[in-house]
């Protein structure tokens, strides 16, 4: 399995990464080296093995439906680059 330049551009778009034009070739090449390594894993016959969600034996904690937290409005809005008294502000998104 390998990826080509076009696929790399697609993945970069999905991940919102802006890869400079001149680096596309280089990154495609190094990613393909990584892919070659991953290929080895595919050599194992897993036909009879059930997919594993996690390697841990532990059980997921479940919490009761209780409100245990309170508003952090001021602190959280203060973290934002742009905000008014109530909302986070982002460059206009129109669909």
């Amino acid at each position: 399995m390998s990826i080509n330049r076009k696929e790399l551009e697609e993945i970069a778009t999905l991940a919102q990464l802006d890869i400079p034009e001149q680096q596309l070739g280089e990154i495609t090449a190094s990613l393909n080296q990584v892919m070659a390594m991953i290929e080895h894993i595919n050599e194992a016959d897993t036909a009879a093995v059930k997919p594993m969600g996690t390697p841990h034996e532990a059980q997921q904690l479940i919490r009761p439906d209780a409100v245990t937290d309170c508003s952090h409005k001021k602190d959280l809005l203060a973290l934002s680059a742009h905000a008014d008294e109530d909302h986070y502000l982002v460059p206009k998104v129109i669909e």
Partner: protein
Amino acid sequence: MSIWDRWEMVIGLEIHVRLATNSKLFSGMKASYGASPNSQVSFLDAGLPGTLPVINQKALEYAIRFGLAVDAEIPPVTVFARKNYFYPDLPKGYQISQMDDPIVGKGHIVIKTDEGEKTVEITRAHLEEDAGKSIHDKYDRYSAIDLNRAGTPLIEVVSEPQMSNAKEAVAYMREIYTRVTHLGICDGNLQEGSFRCDANVSVRPKGQKELGTRAEIKNLNSFRFIEKAINHEAKRQIKLLEAGEKIIQETRLYDADKDQTRSMRSKENANDYRYFPDPDQLPIAITDAMIEAQREHLPEFPEQKIQRYINVLKVKADDAAIIANDIQMAAFFEAADAQSKADADLNAKFLLGEFSALLNAKGESITTSKIDVVSYAGLLDVVAAGGISRKVAKTVLEDMWDSGEAAAAIIKAKGLGQISDSSALNELINQVIADNPSQVADYRAGNEKMFNYFIGQIMKKTKGQANPVQTKQLLEELLNE
């Protein structure tokens, strides 16, 4: 020739049901609707690093309960996955959802339309967190983001593409709505977005096996709009296809004002979401004990209620259906039946008749009624015991509403009790017979319809207070002497 002789619609629905939990799906933050913007956002909901999601037990239970209500498989292990996309109201850059191991597997429901019954299969239902809300009309240059909704629990119910017209889609949506509201897992508030639907619509030439290219219509939150939106979209597609053009797989938004759909964005391929198991969470074992505990909570659904009302309580079929399909009215009816010695049939007739008329006149609903179920049952008992007629009961009901007093007190204070004293009735009836000699002759000559004329006269004289059963008996005796 109608276009539906040449074309057929294929519709699948994805319904988002907001679960009525107190706290969010993965955080201990309050999950109520309508709070001041961004006042119900935990560090986790805001996507701050170092926070970890911990699943809400009630959300799991509600999802299981839904699964049981649609006869679905509940797999023994459920796994959360990340659905990755970028949007300002999704702070983490991914939505915690489910992919390969949803909490509810294959199920089905039966829908009813004018064309009869039809089984619609449910592909799956999975738990996921809602996103925040983007407000685009507050500023010219900015979108404003409110994250209160981010992290509130949803189940997304996915149907098979098995509905073949808009009416079936509406019937399906209504049936799911009835189930989730009766289960008590969703408040059912359509305006607040507690129950919203995306419709996948495609068309194909009649008889063709393969599905056509579909368009997804987003965020339909009214039963009326969904029917119009689907019909509109199908016609748009047919028009394109008949002109030799292609359908693009895309997401469209329905504009109710213009009755048209418009393109939102080309639908990304499912793979573009790059789902993978959420490494922050372990798989969750769903034990038989958990499932059985939820089975205990399964309510009686309207269809079962109707059958019980008719067969056990002896209520008329039409009345039974109206009451059973209204969750609040059914609760009131059943509570009154438990309180009162009156026949359930009288209860049903009075509830749908006099009581509903009063509620309408006052502009109130059964949940905001000033007459509670105990007082209502008290009035029913008086009517059933023959203490007052239904006609008088209507005015007593109005008095109860205005004064807040119990039926018995009003009847006593106003002297509204029925005249059941046979000597008094005797005298009255003899008076009516004496006053109407020609009508009496008419009746005795065989015109039996005249009987009701005398009843009317007696009721007029007594302002409706004569005991109807006794009056009828006595009148018969006296007229046939």
